């Protein structure tokens, strides 16, 4: 039986063809590839997001879409950096994409653990007997989770205060920044600054509907990926409520969105 061809990612755009050592591919989505590389000095880590051109699209349309999307993402990030929201800084980008080999965005590398993994570890611990905890020890576990939930609410609130919506809030797009790399003790596994990543679907908006949908998407993501943590999701909203002036209005709107789902219009 013929074995499937080993996967080879599309060639890197210039100037990364010269890069030594070459950037390492971390993940790939439908729209983009993420590499780890360096920037400005060989010891400054950086994340490289490449949007390869899509051969099935008309070249003019392809260039326009790629350019629009990479710029949208970069503009949102730069605005958020200015506003002091925890997101990766933009180091450099190319929205033109030379000779059709794709546009790229070079960003700050955020060292830490994806929040999805943090919760998965905790849920595994609880399943393996942690649920038998009583009294003080259970309260300590609960307080850890609540603290992280509030931190998530606060960073999403800061994002909305700055006039940006994320568009794809899940626990995979949140990183718990760690000062130093390495295993942390269980007591401190949920401490640290929450950083928002992947602004590929982000947009500038201050509408309460858009903001409420952002929260709703995150709430649903919790329900499906972290069933044991879902009972603490209310703490996200507590952290969110105190983070900007219009938060209360958005939370009220969230109740409407919950009743009908994220699509307001039933047309189409």
């Amino acid at each position: 039986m013929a074995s499937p061809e080993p996967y080879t990612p599309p060639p890197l755009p210039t100037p990364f063809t010269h890069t030594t050592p070459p950037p390492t591919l971390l993940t790939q989505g439908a729209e983009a590839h993420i590499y780890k590389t360096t920037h400005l000095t060989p010891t400054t880590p950086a994340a490289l997001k490449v949007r390869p051109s899509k051969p099935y699209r008309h070249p003019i349309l392809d260039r326009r879409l790629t350019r629009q999307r990479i710029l949208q993402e970069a503009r949102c990030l730069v605005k958020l950096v200015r506003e002091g929201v925890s997101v990766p800084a933009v180091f450099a980008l190319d929205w033109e994409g030379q000779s059709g080999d794709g546009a790229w965005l070079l960003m700050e590398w955020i060292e830490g653990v994806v929040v999805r993994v943090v919760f998965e570890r905790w849920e595994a611990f609880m399943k393996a007997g942690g649920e038998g905890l009583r009294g003080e020890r259970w309260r300590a576990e609960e307080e850890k989770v609540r603290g992280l939930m509030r931190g998530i609410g606060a960073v999403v609130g800061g994002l909305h205060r700055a006039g940006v919506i994320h568009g794809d809030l899940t626990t995979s797009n949140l990183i718990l920044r760690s000062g130093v790399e390495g295993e942390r003790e269980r007591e401190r596994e949920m401490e640290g600054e929450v950083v928002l990543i992947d602004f590929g679907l982000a947009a500038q908006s201050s509408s309460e509907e858009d903001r409420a949908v952002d929260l709703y998407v995150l709430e649903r993501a919790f329900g499906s990926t972290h069933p044991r943590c879902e009972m603490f999701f209310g703490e996200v909203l507590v952290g969110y409520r105190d983070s900007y002036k219009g938060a209360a209005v958005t939370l009220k709107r969230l109740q409407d969105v919950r009743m009908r789902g994220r699509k307001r219009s039933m047309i189409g």
Partner: protein
Amino acid sequence: MSFTLETIHLPHLPSSLPVHVALYRDVQNAPFLRQQLISGNSEFEYALIDASMILSRAHVFSAVFRAVIDYLNKRLKSRNVHSEIVFSFSPTNNIADSFRKFGISDSTKDLLVVKVSVTPEITHDSVAAHLAQSIEGSPVSFTDETLSEIADVAKIKKAYKLGALTSAPAGQVNGASNAEKMRLENSVIGAIALRGAT
């Protein structure tokens, strides 16, 4: 001969394009140097930058990186890669304005010089020798520490329209000044990266 000329290879750029950087204080012949640029004297093809407009090494390298990428992609908006470096510091598309704000002026005392080896004849030694006989000033080491002594942060914030940069969110007392510095630097670097996006 000056030994403070630093030669750097920036990641991702071809190794045939090293970048030479030198920093001077108490420069005495700024009007002469500026005149060489205006008259287009090819011996003085440098990026001559008013160092009070510089925050850090990362700030400098971001502008150089942007200019060299545009040079490699044949997208220069100005005469050559060295004028483009000065232009790359600017958050706007106005070339004359960027030279006024970031380039050398007759009153410049602290000067940053950048040269890219666009031809093989341009080497560390050739640049060092030429600078030693052309620039009347005290060479100092090109470090973040020296740069932060020279930087005029108020002027930099104004040039990048970051005057209204709100203070840090409440609850950041320890290390807040360092976080604020990083935020300013990252805001400036983001503006350099996004210049020209419409």
